[in-house]
């Protein structure tokens, strides 16, 4: 087949391609809504949610994980474009991580020595480490599915930000249930749950986002 012939066939195909941003929103928002409903029905929101929303150290959990989710999903949309490899800058993610570590250090210094270990281990570590990854499944899948319809040229990085975004949002939703307000707890265990999900998403993305 001559290239001119191929061009003729390509030009005749005028089916418009999908708009990735609206596709992602149409998938991610229901996935997150479902996660919130699941937390509400199965675990229940914390009884003192109203008061917690006025406590800075408690709100910081939702803020940090939410910002992580938003920043990473914006990067995912950038990395869905072929030139995203050059244009996507990952430093906002490092800024979120630095803020979380700063909070951890602050909590370490302000918590009395005898109470530190208890604050860090908490009472709901297992629930946290199980629930956040479970809640992440649909949002991360929504991101991967949308990325596959893009033209990812850095599959590893795209899988990485998809994992951070999905698990960041999921951790923010889990925080509506969780009553552990010490950064010693949540930076450690939310962080570990997010890291686990992100690792899996990165490995899967490196393979599945090639085209």
């Amino acid at each position, binding site marked *: 087949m001559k290239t001119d012939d191929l*061009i003729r066939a390509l*030009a005749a195909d*005028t089916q418009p391609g999908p708009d990735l941003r609206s596709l992602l929103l149409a998938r991610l928002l229901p996935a997150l809504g479902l996660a919130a409903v699941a937390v509400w029905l199965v675990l229940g929101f914390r009884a003192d949610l109203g008061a917690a929303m006025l406590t800075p150290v408690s709100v910081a959990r939702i803020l940090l994980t939410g910002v992580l989710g938003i920043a990473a999903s914006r990067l995912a949309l950038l990395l869905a474009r*072929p*030139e995203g490899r*050059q244009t996507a800058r990952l430093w906002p993610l490092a800024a979120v991580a630095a803020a979380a570590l700063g909070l951890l250090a602050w909590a370490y210094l302000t918590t009395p020595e005898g109470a530190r270990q208890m604050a860090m281990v908490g009472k709901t570590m297992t629930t946290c480490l199980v629930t956040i990854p479970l809640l992440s499944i649909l949002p991360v899948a929504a991101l991967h599915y949308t990325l596959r319809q893009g*033209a990812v040229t850095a599959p590893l990085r795209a899988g990485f930000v998809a994992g951070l975004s999905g698990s960041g949002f999921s951790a923010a939703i889990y925080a509506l249930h969780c009553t552990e307000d010490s950064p010693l707890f949540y930076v450690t265990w939310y962080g570990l749950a997010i890291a686990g999900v992100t690792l899996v998403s990165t490995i899967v993305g490196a393979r599945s986002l090639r085209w």
Partner: protein
Amino acid sequence: MAEDVDAWGQLLTAANAGDARAYARFLQSVTPVLRGIVRAKGGGLGEAGCEDVLQEVLLAVHLKRHTWDQGAPVRPWLYAITRYKVVDAFRARGRKIDLPIEDFAEVLAAEAGPDPTEAADMAKMIDMLDGRSAEIVRKIGLEGVSVAETGQALTMSEGAVRVALHRALKTLAILRERHVK
């Protein structure tokens, strides 16, 4: 060259809005540049081999044209797809190639003129399509029949022909992926 590049943005904008003629002009105008890149990087493949790779790149550009951000420059987008697909194509043929993206800016378009070579891969892939899809691609591509006339010949509506063509092109990309490797 600078005029070309501005024109690319306008043509691609019109193309993504469904203007088939603008789209054909876009593809015709980027093809010599892409051919130049592929030949500069893959001289060892021979002319026909390079043309195979070029067609792979064009198919990728086609199927991913919705990932171009209207208003963004076309060149970085186009070169990023080209680079990805060229590296992929060479890897599939058992070669490794190092393609710094900066190099692309310096590659000149291959000399214009009629499309010189018959590439072999695409024809093989078309043979693997189901009968009707293959016929649609051949009629429109090789014979230059319009979508409407193709529909009449196959007693299909124009819309159905377009859908079938789109699916066929997607399938071609998947087949290439599988068979060149």
